[in-house]
């Protein structure tokens, strides 16, 4: 089983510490939620794990199923990313087929697996012939998830995977991710600013503030009984009709 460990990760941009000494472990069958406001460094962490941005210091160690460290050039067989905006993360020029067949080929698999990949994300096989603009937001994000699964990745970095989608389809995409995580033993990093889904779709919540993890633990502990003042602020800021109508709060 593939495990990814982040140790003392730090990224500075011109002296500004965007990510400051962050450590956590992604293990199979578990989802870690990384929550924070914009500018807290969430996406920078995602991009460092996806090897799009070089860390200033610290380590990202990937341990393969055989218990040894995965060599650099095999890294992308194991770690893949889902981007925030499915309207931007699919190339408008190419078909769905291209988006899935390329990563399959690059990682030594047969493009014949495309229909199977689509099935895993509950999309009909005929969607392979379509181009991104012919798909709805939810369908696009499913294609993006299939693309991340194509190399056979076991560690998935999901950077705000539903924040650009309509509310009514968000849950469907999150449930799909949760099912894949359970059934295929994926290690998932779920990055979000939505505390409610972070609480319900994760085993551990990390609260990020100005590049530092200020609080961590099981979702119920962190979000229902926050100890850190910043977490409390975040929890209070999220719109929550529950407090207005069910618990007699001020309207």
């Amino acid at each position, binding site marked *: 089983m593939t495990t990814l460990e982040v140790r003392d990760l730090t990224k500075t941009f011109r002296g500004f510490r965007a990510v400051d000494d962050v450590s956590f472990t992604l293990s199979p069958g578990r989802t870690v939620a990384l929550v924070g406001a914009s500018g807290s460094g969430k996406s920078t962490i995602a991009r460092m794990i996806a090897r799009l941005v070089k860390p200033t210091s610290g380590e990202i160690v990937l341990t393969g199923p055989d218990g040894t460290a995965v060599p650099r050039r095999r890294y992308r067989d194991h770690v*893949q*990313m889902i981007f925030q905006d499915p309207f931007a993360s699919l190339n408008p*020029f*190419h078909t769905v087929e291209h988006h899935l067949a390329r990563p399959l080929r690059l990682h030594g698999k047969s493009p014949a697996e495309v229909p199977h990949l689509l099935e895993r994300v509950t999309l009909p096989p005929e969607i392979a012939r379509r181009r991104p603009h012919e798909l709805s937001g939810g369908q696009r994000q499913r294609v993006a998830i299939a693309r991340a699964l194509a190399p056979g990745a076991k560690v998935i970095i999901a950077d705000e995977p539903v924040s650009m989608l309509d509310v*009514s389809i968000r849950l469907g995409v999150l449930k799909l991710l949760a099912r894949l995580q359970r059934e295929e033993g994926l290690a998932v990093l779920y990055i979000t600013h939505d505390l409610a889904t972070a609480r319900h779709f994760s085993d551990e919540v990390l609260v990020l503030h100005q590049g530092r993890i200020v609080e961590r633990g099981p979702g119920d502990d962190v979000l*229902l009984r926050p100890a850190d003042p910043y977490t409390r602020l975040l929890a209070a*800021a999220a719109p929550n009709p529950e407090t207005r109508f069910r618990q007699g709060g001020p309207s």
Partner: protein
Amino acid sequence: MTRSPKLVTGLALAGVIVLFGLLGPLLTGDPATIRDSGLTPPGGEHLLGTTLTGQDVLAQLAHATRGSLWLGLLVGVLATVLSGVFGIVGAYAGGAVDEVFSLFSNVVLVIPGLPLVIVVAGFVPADQRGTSTIALVLAITGWAAAARVLRAQTLSLRNRDYVAAARVSGEKTWRVIGVEILPNLLPVIASQFVFAVVLAILSEAGLSFLGLGAADSSTLGTMLYYAQNGFALQREAWWWFVPPGLVIAVFGGALSLINFSIDEIVNPALRDRVRRDGDVVASDPAPPEPDAVLTVRNLNVVYRGDTPVHAVKDVSLTLRRGEILGLAGESGCGKTTLAYAVNRLHRPPAEVTSGSVMFGDVDVLALEAEELRRFRWVKLSMVFQGAMNSLNPVTTVRAQLKDVLTTHRPEMSSAQREERCAEVLRLVGVDPARLGAYPHELSGGMRQRVMIAMALLLEPRVMIMDEPTTALDVLVQREILDEIKRLRDELGFAVLFITHDLPLLLELSDRIAVMRDGEVVEHATAEDLYLRPHHPYTRELLASFPSLTGEAGALTR
């Protein structure tokens, strides 16, 4: 895609000339044959007459057209390749490579093209001055502008997520450029190519006319050169110089038309605009409820087109004094179209086909242009999604706020205006000292507050807010929502708050209308909607977000 007349005309004209260049030389005989006849006008054996030395003008024209087209093509390809290498590769590589490449492009760009071409062509001995030399000279002096355009486009494309996704999936750099970026640049490259071809044909004609053209081939330019040397103008032998000039002009025009159409295909905003037919004015608006500030009755908005889209269907809403009315709906449900129509900001092809919008007892849809101008912003203001990005980046906050007052309150003195601007900024929780700030010096949340301040400036009775906090952070969103509630309590205006974020509306609004496919499917107080939803779609929406503090239950499984 509808064929634009420009594209059809351009393609037809260019096609005729290309065909003539390709097939003409095969049909017209030898252009070099000298006859004793001398200069003869068109007619009989020589359809376009003969030159001073009795050569057939039509045959010369055919060969010259072929020569010019070949040269244009050569230059087009060379210049496009050069601009691609320097523009696309440089921009994708970034860093020092980009610096050097773009410095080089800029240096080439400031070298005046045609004079350089003349100097270089003049230095190459006439007997070595073949078509390829001329083409090379023209390409080298002509690629730089296109390289800059391609660089700018590539810089924006390389930051797209699909490029990052291709890198994450392990694609090699050249494949990312060739397969992910290049296809998206094709329209730009095509238009730059066409431009390079036109420029090359024109420049070559100029060069040849000056006697600096290719020695080994005949082009339209060399034809003009010989016509000039043969005193065609003085001898009134128009058939000698008019045809080559006409071919150059028509071909240049045709390619320009094609180029415009490429722009139009890429940029839909340039396509022909739909005529504005008058909106239907309410025939008999019923008197509104006494407490209502804004009454929308049976409003229908249709986007005219080949397949008309009925975006707003029979919507009725009442906004009462001091009330926050939430309008909930997902993307494409017509909520923004509705907001625009209420303020008469909808543009063709959108059209109000029936219904009424009453502001107090004013029929908004019946207002004349000048009345409408006085009505908007004074009585009813709007804050758009991403409005913080609609502040003018080159003027200060003060100038932009004062501008509104200058337009709508010309009687105010400058000092009064300054005081009012400071006052509204204080209202939205921004330090009036920031009046002198430029928009880029403010954070996104601050800019959105400034937009709200601008909407408050004239003390409107109604504010329409379309996703005003969607682009903002949760913490900033919270501050702005609290601000809106406080201002509503203090100033008593009514708010129509439009968003897809139902939890937010449930917390903020007094009443909520749920919209789907252009229709309002449920309209109730926030509490009723939350605790006793009637419509299945409302229930579906309510079930689609987990509560922060509630039980997860079956939600996540």
